[in-house]
């Protein structure tokens, strides 16, 4: 037998590590998701100390480390603060299938919120047709099609009649 440790062949074994999860939304997100599903409304929490309105709602205000317990309703319209046109076919983890590029992700600050929400934007993937500061509205699935997860939001779309600032 050859005693020398010489590599004769490189072997790589393919394996898919498929671990199924069921994530609890928790009290705060469950209320957010049921309000969205049942009433088509966005709700956030307001910090009792700094008054920051946070979305998604969560148990503690990070800045003050106090418990959030005041709920506020937010508008379903807001302002785009950032965006990207995606050319990579990123995987939708709920289906395992890629989002078909090009598509647009946007960060939108709903009126009344201090946080932004990230989601798909239904706009032509063209830098002339999308800009920071653009006014947006949320488009939800019809009531009977909503299931109580983030897919109840179809996308954002621009409010009509806007012109790109020069």
């Amino acid at each position: 037998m050859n005693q020398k440790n010489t590599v004769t062949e490189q072997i790589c074994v393919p394996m898919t590590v498929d671990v199924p999860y069921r994530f609890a939304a928790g009290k705060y997100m469950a209320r957010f998701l049921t309000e969205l599903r049942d009433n088509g409304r966005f709700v956030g929490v307001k910090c009792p100390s700094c008054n920051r309105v946070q979305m998604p709602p969560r148990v503690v205000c990070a800045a003050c480390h106090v418990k959030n317990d005041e709920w506020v309703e937010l508008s379903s319209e807001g302002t785009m603060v950032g965006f990207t046109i995606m050319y990579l076919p990123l995987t939708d983890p709920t289906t395992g299938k890629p989002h078909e590029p090009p598509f647009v992700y946007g960060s939108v600050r709903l009126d009344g919120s201090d946080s932004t929400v990230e989601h798909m934007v239904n706009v032509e993937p063209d830098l002339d047709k999308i800009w920071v500061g653009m006014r947006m509205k949320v488009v939800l699935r019809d009531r009977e099609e909503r299931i109580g997860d983030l897919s109840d939001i179809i996308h954002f779309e621009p409010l009509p009649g806007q012109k790109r600032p020069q």
Partner: protein
Amino acid sequence: MSDRVAIVGVAQTRFSPKRADANVAELAYEVIEKVLNDTGLSIEKDIDNTISCSHDIWDGQTISNIGITDVAGGHLRTEEKMAMDGSTAAYYGAVGILSGEYECTLLLAHTKMSQTNRHIVNNDAFEPIYSRQLGLDFTSAGALQARRFMHAHGLSREDFARVVMKNLGNAMANPLACRFGYYGLDDVLSAPMEADPLTAMDAAPDVDGAVAMIVASESKAKKITDTPVWIQGLGSCYDDYFLGDRDLAECMALEKAAAQAYKMAGISNPVKDLDLIELSDEFSYQELLWLEGLGVCKPGEGARLTESGFTSREGELPVNPSGGVLSGVPANVMGLNRVAEAALQLMGKAGERQVKDAKRAVAQGHTGFCGQHQCVIVLGNQ
């Protein structure tokens, strides 16, 4: 208790797109064997602690360190894992020695990005109920940050492209680099667009590799080497987890981490007091943003420093003379590679990429999307 901690040895693999010839343990052992040989130290006699840095989902194994405790010197001994960027291994290695508990610690960071798909791994970093199902990953989140940063200061894709040109040019002198070359503006701007405004050249490539380092107390360090590099300052800070809670054009966590590290090191004016910076430019725009966080320039002014040559290897304050992460350094390894590159500069062992008369340097690492966690380490050879 030790007053000072020194880096006494560094070993790094070459970074390459795919190391199909080596499993994770063999890859890690390449650098462990080398750093022990270079320093003349033995696991059994000299090393009293190991801190490794890797990532369960990248490695495809729960508690990714447990399979390589043998090569890391953790067999029937202690070993701790940082599930974060490698710079935090240096942070906690130094803290352990400053506490007096340990005298000589082996640090390790390793990742084989070729094993799986970075977009799927990075998507798992996002909160499962609210943002993960959008498919967001570090590149798309980075693009949102880049766009926000451009909007805040009127920056252009050309400003980011100049960072790529500088760093890949610097990487020509780095024999470990995977991606290097003298490129023009058009080369970067016309590269395949991944997530507007970021092209494939604005993003660090997928590579495999490992870095090992040994840190020691002052008394031990002086017995090991004539060129100890002192860890003079440490800082660590988290920003908000949800992207929507932050103005992505700012980097408050880095400002705070840098303030801690500078205070500890007695640095009042980073531009004057530092001779070079190694920072984690996972994406081109980050070099400009992190320069603000590190107090090198005012918001929006990093682009001018790049364009004027201020941050070139021959400039007043070289930034990423190694070529940085854009030249190809694996996720999780990138921060320890920054510390290693800064240490090599201060040891005078940086070869062709050596910055003249380097006495003090800062290394920066970050974990998570858009630099949520920031770690800053100040090093000096005096």
